[in-house]
């Protein structure tokens, strides 16, 4: 009980993820401008916006794949801006990619096993000589991967090369691989792209389960409003690298600026000849 109150105090002092004034520039052009974001409650947070709004750039900046020109990113109170991607991942911030994130020459089971890297304890010598610690760890990895494959309905494909799967299945493999690492903050870049509508419904159930049951914070992007509205507890809207709206899904749906960003200004769309 004591530890519980201490923890919640800490949570009050530091939001889980705090982004302030984040700015990313590519050759003088701002891909992100002064972006503020605060994630303090669990659940699923959506980042939406039209193509080129800066969603992926935001993920890249949060995970160390691009350098920020200004701003700060605090994860559990700790400054992570400027760290290398693997250092950020080590802390439990795990992301997926829009494409090309799969290891296509490995089979599905191996792909999932790579995800365990963050939690590895065996040293090189323990692995080489197969000490007991390594053996039990290998067993743990194996079991965990199989359990996740079952949850993702991919168990029959365990021995298939990941490169031979459909795009949608590859996305699921990538998600499973991320889950192998027991992430604390999961960044999913367009997880629903390429999924059939039934696969998409499965994914929604799955992600809701993950966010609800395991206390994993999920941040996801998508440009499909339907998907994001159906899954997110809270939504941030980006356009031209800036945050133009924030709120619960039902508020976002009513937000004029957001509607304009997606549909263009009335009258202007005719003038532009689209």
């Amino acid at each position, binding site marked *: 009980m004591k530890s519980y109150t201490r923890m919640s105090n800490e949570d009050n002092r530091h939001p889980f993820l705090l982004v302030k004034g984040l700015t990313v520039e590519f050759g003088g052009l701002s891909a992100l401008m002064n972006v503020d974001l605060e994630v303090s409650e669990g659940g699923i947070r959506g980042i939406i916006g039209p193509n080129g709004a800066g969603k992926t750039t935001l993920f890249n900046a949060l995970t160390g794949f691009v350098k920020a020109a200004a701003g700060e990113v605090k994860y559990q109170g700790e400054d992570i801006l400027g760290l290398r991607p*693997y250092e950020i991942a080590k802390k439990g911030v795990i992301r997926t990619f829009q494409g090309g*994130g*799969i290891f296509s020459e490995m089979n599905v089971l191996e792909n999932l096993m790579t995800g365990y890297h963050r939690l590895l304890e065996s040293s090189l010598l323990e692995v*080489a000589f*197969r000490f007991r610690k390594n053996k039990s760890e290998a067993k743990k990895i194996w079991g965990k991967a199989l359990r996740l494959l079952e949850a993702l309905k991919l168990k029959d494909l365990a021995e298939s090369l990941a490169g031979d799967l459909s795009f949608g299945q590859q996305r699921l493999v990538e998600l499973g691989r991320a889950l192998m690492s027991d992430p604390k903050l999961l960044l999913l870049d367009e997880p629903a792209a390429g999924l059939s509508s039934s696969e998409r419904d499965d994914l929604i159930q799955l992600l809701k389960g993950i966010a609800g049951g395991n206390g994993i914070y999920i941040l996801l992007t998508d440009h499909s409003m339907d998907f994001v509205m159906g899954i997110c507890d809270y939504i941030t809207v980006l356009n031209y690298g800036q945050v133009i709206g924030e709120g619960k899904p039902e508020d976002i749906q009513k937000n004029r600026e957001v509607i304009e960003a997606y549909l263009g200004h009335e009258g202007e769309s005719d003038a532009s000849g689209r």
Partner: protein
Amino acid sequence: MKRLKKYKSLLCFVLLLFIPLLTTNYTQYLINIAFIYILVTLGFNLVLGYVGRFSFANASFFGIGAYSVGLLMRKLGIPFWFSLPLGGLITGAVGLLLGFPALRLHRYYLAVVTLAFTFLMKFIYIHGGGFTYGPSGFDIPVPTIGVLRFSSDKNVYYIVLVVFFLVLTLIANIIKSNIGRSFRSVNEAENAAEALSMNTRKTVLLAFALSGFVVGIAGGLLSIVLRRITPDSFGMLEIVTHFIMVVFGGLGSITGSIIGGSVISLLPELLRGSQEYQELLYGLLIVIFVLFAPKGIYGFILKYVPGVQREKLYQDVE
């Protein structure tokens, strides 16, 4: 059946113990060389096939292993049993150092730098004066345990066999573990590897160091099999040979390394009397395999021979 599978490699080892009963001294020598080249191929594969770095320093690792083990025995009188692991560690350290340019250089530049390093090492062997015994090389002392002298090819075979199995097992264990998977991850998608908390630089350095260690050990074994080492053994032909062994056998495969190392090292024997065609054949092999079977014999067998399963790249769990 499952039991049999578990003890497959032990069974293999026991059967191989009887090989000297069936061989002449000369065929025994060839078999010793073949085992050494399997280790060479496996070590090179770590760099070329697993982390996918275009390095040609492998022949230099082989030479550094042979020279350091030989010199430790000859100059310092350190027994073979200590010189061998020391030589492996020395070559591993050199491998680690050569990993650094691999972090920064694009493939072609890395190829040039490592090629230059291999020639530099050969230059040092030739012009090292009293330290390396110059162009004619030097004799290697015979390894002994008490009164037991490992002077014949059949005796040396037992050293080669034990070391071979030990190193093969250790490397196979690593390759099948998450560490081995991190090599392949870095090769396939560096971004995705980093996003899974893999330190790609450290991974590449580790692969180079391990590669140096394995090939260095192979070089040490070579020194006691040849009983005399000369700079000529570690030049251009050697660079090409190692490359063919990996490409012919199969990039990123243990089985492929075993096939590539043994078949290609025995090839000159099959061509006896027509040695001048050896280089021609090497050239043809490279062209054919790069064009038509980029995954080597191993990939070819997997694709066209029904019922053959991909080698398991994770540890067995019961």
